């Protein structure tokens, strides 16, 4: 080996690895290929490097095709409702109407109390809208001022947007829902883990209701409801009582009138 060649060889040690691993840009790979064509020892090195990696692939690639344990997926999904409705916003709206409608129908049939109807309405709204990726809300947080005016007008009560930043929930936005006799409002919040809660607000309760905060579970959705006058509130999400009640208190404090 001449001095020149030796220098060249040392210079391309990294390239032999890069070549073996298929990580060189094409021009560079061509040069290395030409080089090893004339240097059997370099060719042998490259081949050996590849055989080592091959052994790793042979031992471990099989797992790529094996089913992922449900427990591992569940860790990631944990905070999401189990039954995600894979529907576009329009369909979601329809479904919301049906779900909420059904729950209201049940209200009539079973003479469900207004507060029980609040629970149903809140959890239904959460189940339908919280999993929405593209269209969770009609009006986004950027238009919070407009959102507040619009919903206030439609449900016939002042609805300032509560701030939940202290609990690390930020407003996603809101939408109008089908209520019982009047429209209902939905505000959605999301925390930094991507977990959502919805605030469901109705203004069609029998006058004179005054109900304190109450936590209930519907499947894996927690709901805190309360009422004041004709206004009924429900805060729903896949959270424990310990997590949800403080959020409800924060909302209640800001919406008391």
């Amino acid at each position, binding site marked *: 080996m001449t001095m020149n060649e030796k220098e060249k060889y040392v210079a391309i040690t990294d390239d032999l690895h890069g070549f073996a691993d298929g990580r060189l840009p094409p021009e560079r790979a061509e040069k290395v290929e030409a080089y090893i064509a004339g240097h059997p020892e370099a060719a042998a090195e*490259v081949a050996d490097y590849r055989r080592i990696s091959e052994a790793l692939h042979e031992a471990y690639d099989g797992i790529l095709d094996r089913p992922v344990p449900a427990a591992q997926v569940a860790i990631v999904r944990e905070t999401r409702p189990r039954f995600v409705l894979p529907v576009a916003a329009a369909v979601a709206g329809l479904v919301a109407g049906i779900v909420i409608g059904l729950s209201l129908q049940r209200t009539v049939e079973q003479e469900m109390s207004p507060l029980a109807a609040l629970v149903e309405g809140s959890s239904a709204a959460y189940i339908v809208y919280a999993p929405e990726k593209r269209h969770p809300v009609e009006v986004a947080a950027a238009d919070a001022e407009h959102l507040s005016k619009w919903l206030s007008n439609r449900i016939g009560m002042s609805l300032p947007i509560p701030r939940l930043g202290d609990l690390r929930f930020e407003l996603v936005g809101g939408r109008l829902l089908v209520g019982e006799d009047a429209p209902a409002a939905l505000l959605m919040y999301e925390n930094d883990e991507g977990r959502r809660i919805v605030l469901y607000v109705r203004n069609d309760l029998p006058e004179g209701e005054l109900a304190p905060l109450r936590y209930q579970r519907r499947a894996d959705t927690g709901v805190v409801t309360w009422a004041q006058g004709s206004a009924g509130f429900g805060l729903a999400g896949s959270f424990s009582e310990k997590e949800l009640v403080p959020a409800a208190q924060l909302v209640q404090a800001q919406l008391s009138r």
Partner: protein
Amino acid sequence: MIRDRGLLIAEIPHLRRYALALTRDPDLADDLVQTCLERGLSRLKLWQPSRRIRPWLFTIMHNLHVDMVRHSARRGVSLPLDEMPEQPSQAAGQEARLNVRAVLDEIDNLPREQRDVLILIGIDELSYAEAAGVLSIPLGTLMSRLHRARSRLRERLGMAGSRPPIRRVK
């Protein structure tokens, strides 16, 4: 955020492979994946979506594994290295392949820092630069460790000097 969770789920098979290569034990690997997912979720906000999520997750897993090994070493527990994942039954016969088990055993005999590099590069998930990032070492260090690891394996496995068949992989 929900989209990010989807990304995370899509990474699970790759995390499983990396964990298995690190631990060579299916149960330990599952534990590692589980802890890694939990850790990843709790820090998802720190991940910059402009960057690939895989190197970010692999960094978490690498660090967890370092802790795991340190912890078990301190407690005097030896990590089981014997249980091999089932091997694909497909005929290996085209050429003289290396005995997979022998290679894995020799990899385990490498100094830890070389083993880390060799596995990370060998399973072929990341660029060199990304792998260096995962291990928190400069690229030059990664390349020299890779070279030392592979040279040592060639020696140990009696490859150097033999005339192996040249086979293109991918």
